[in-house]
């Protein structure tokens, strides 16, 4: 799926859970997130890609008490129609919500894929 997803769990640190098919998703992530402000919510379109960040919709927190952020890079058809954070919550979050519910409390990070 044309989606990069980075997040953290209660006890595991920030990492990519979807790599969008890239062997190393970090350069792609950087290309759209560089310069995005340190705000809890962010939306930005760079060329055909969308950078999206929002706090966990269920308010789940990490071990240090910080609400867990989710960050996405969407591209291809998936990026169309995502013009605000609210669009992202409506169109992108449902794609990963169940997966996050399964893994966020695990003691160790799951590996990335997809």
């Amino acid at each position, binding site marked *: 799926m044309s989606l990069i997803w980075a997040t953290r769990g209660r006890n595991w640190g*920030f990492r990519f859970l979807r790599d969008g098919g890239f062997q190393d998703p970090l350069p792609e992530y*950087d290309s759209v997130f560089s310069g995005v402000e340190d705000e809890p919510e962010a939306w930005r379109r760079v060329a055909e890609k969308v950078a999206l960040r929002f706090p966990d919709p269920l308010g789940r927190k990490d071990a*240090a008490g910080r609400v867990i952020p989710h960050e996405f890079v969407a591209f291809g058809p998936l990026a169309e129609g995502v013009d605000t954070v609210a669009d992202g919550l409506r169109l992108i979050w449902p794609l990963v919500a169940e997966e996050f519910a399964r893994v966020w409390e695990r003691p160790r990070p799951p590996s990335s894929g997809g």
Partner: protein
Amino acid sequence: MKPSRVLEQNIAVFGASGSGKTVMLSSFYGATQEPQYRQNNLFHVVADDAGQGTRLHQSYLGMKNSARLPMSNHFSATSYSFSVRLKDEPDAKAMKKKPFDALRLVWHDYPGEWFEQNVSGPEEAQRRIDTFKSLLGSDVALLLVDGQRLLDNAGEEERYLKALLATFHNGLLSLKDDLLEDGKPLVEFPRIWIMALSKSDLLPNLDVFKFRDLLIEKAGDEMADLRQVLAGLVEGSDALSVGEDFVLLSSARFDAGKVEVTERIGLDLILPLAAVLPFERHLRWAELKLLPAKVGEKLLSGAGALAAVLVGIKIKRPGPIGPVLKFVGLVLSQEVLNDAAKLAGDRLQVLHAEALAKRDYLTAALTRFKIDLEAGEEKRIFIRSLR
């Protein structure tokens, strides 16, 4: 101000994810922008990159006004460079006779995950190595022990402490080959590894002596193991203090929905720890003949410059910092150096007052740093190694 007249000190803060590194950095910088800090201190702390300064200040205000914690670092590190600028324009002629006229503090912030889990790919792996290489060029390292985690493990603190120290130990060991060029031990390396309790406001009954005792009682073996790993990275490993200095830190008091950024502990010691603690320690090691020639030359050149300023010796040959530092190191006698390092108590207060009266703000600032360290010891938030 020409950059060549600036003495740069790097500080390395090592801490697991969530242990308070970014909060500490924001709190340190934000507080220096408050009106009372600007009034009460002889210098301003100025972010060399204005954009970074604004972001840090914004994070601080977010905590202060909206109880919002700064965002953690994701996949990359950032180095923040702060200039400690003297308040009033000093006497230009007198300043020319000083080996340097400003201090710079470089503070590296990075994702705590980098010690704890695998990186996402080759790009992040390279960033991690580059960051740790910069960190290991610092003079002083703070190893953060998370007060919240101690509290969570009350009664069996060893579970957390052993795991934390093992994480640092294994993290450094696994990067060893990448950190050393051709396997050669490093000359520039933090030689003072201070154990620092972050979020210490959560443990109001723990003074720095109890913190030290807890670490030694419950994780003494792991501290010794960590020392061994660090010794394996550094040239002249006798000149190394690991777990001999301790400090309590708290960036703010966090209550439900409120962050009291004015209730801070130990953050005023950061500049003194970075600037004058290594200077004193390096000279003591020289006196004890623990420094191999190459290491001594490197460490003592900076010490000479600081000593000259502290005891108010005028040097004749101003110029770029490198040659001047070497020059000062050579011309100052061992007695003068030791005298400057051991300045303490009443004599320190007198020198500080004299420097203030003469509007010699550089000497005044450095003597103030030494006074602050003494005050930290009296308040039982700081222990200096006796070795």
